[in-house]
């Protein structure tokens, strides 16, 4: 089993080292860490502005965001980084022969149940990442690398809560 595994995926300690170097590169060039949820936020604000421009103008949250991000999503570091993630993930998947349209789920649940819970999980993660000022990448991983106290707290609460609820959610995964 171990042999198959090493062919399939990178050794996790090697993967972690490479990820650490990618993160270090971001700090060295751009003075900031990696992120993900911020790119979604940039796209959401831009979309709201297209659909309801007056709403954006009259709502404090949006006008403040626009003031601090004057270039819009096309000038947003995280948006470009996430576009890169799509390309990088695709290249790796292509090399490893993993490109395939599918819904991955435990044999105990149907694809439909999996899709519904994925959406619920996404809603919670999206909301939580805004409240926590960043997700696993931006707040927990990058925060820990710069030794931010908040980064360690967020990391502990993400993983702690997931561990605490694992038993209840076990049917979804095992």
């Amino acid at each position, binding site marked *: 089993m171990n042999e198959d*595994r090493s062919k399939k995926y990178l050794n996790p300690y090697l*993967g972690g080292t490479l990820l650490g170097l990618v993160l*270090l590169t971001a700090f060295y060039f751009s003075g900031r*860490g990696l992120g993900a949820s911020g790119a979604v936020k940039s796209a*959401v604000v831009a979309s709201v502005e297209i659909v309801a421009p007056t709403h954006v103008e009259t709502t404090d949250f949006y006008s403040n965001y626009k003031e601090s991000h004057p270039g819009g999503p096309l000038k947003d570091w995280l948006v470009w980084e996430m576009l890169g993630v799509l390309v990088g*993930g695709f290249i790796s998947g292509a090399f490893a022969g993993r490109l395939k349209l599918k819904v*991955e789920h435990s044999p105990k649940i149907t694809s439909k149940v999996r899709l519904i819970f994925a959406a619920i999980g996404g809603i919670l993660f999206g909301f*939580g990442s805004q409240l926590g*000022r960043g997700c696993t990448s931006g707040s927990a991983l990058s925060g820990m690398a710069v030794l931010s106290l908040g980064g360690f707290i967020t990391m502990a609460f*993400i993983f702690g809560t997931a561990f605490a609820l694992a038993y209840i959610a076990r049917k979804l995964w095992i």
Partner: protein
Amino acid sequence: MGPLVVYEIISANTNLVMAFIIGIGFGFVLESSGFSSSRKLAGQFYGYDSTVLKVFFTAAVVAMLGLLFFSLFGWIDLSLIYINPTFLYSAMVGGAVMGVGFILGGFCPGTAFCALSIGKLDALSFIGGLVIGVLLFTEAFPLVEELFYAENMGTPTINEFLNMSRGTFGLILILIALGMFFVAEWAEKKFPREEY
């Protein structure tokens, strides 16, 4: 001396090109490590797969040590690196809400985009959820504003908080990581399963 964009060694537009290249590296490493599989990610919480913990903590330690050495060599000015601010209550509540999202959805935002790139449709559903969740937050902001700004502690680092030097805390973090890797290797042998 870095960060290069702050010292204007690279322009704002070059910085965006770098963001794209760094993103490619980020996505490639996540996918190669198996982070495009929700069942592999969720395995972390059942003891049968500790890839998340190993990759995550190895990366944090490598980047932390890299920053420390770059700073000692005079290659980077740590005072110009973005340090995530600490708002105690929103970090805790936000983290807990993300934890629920993680165990139900099986992804975090970065891994969901990575999984979408190789065709995982559950990741697409998760990203749809992310958009709704972010929109709920931006629309409901006045309701959570008080919590969002409560207990503003500034930008403390954990070593300042514990009254230690950066290097001492770094060493402790490495020892903690090694201890967790040891437990993780043990758990994976105890709860074996096939690869997803």
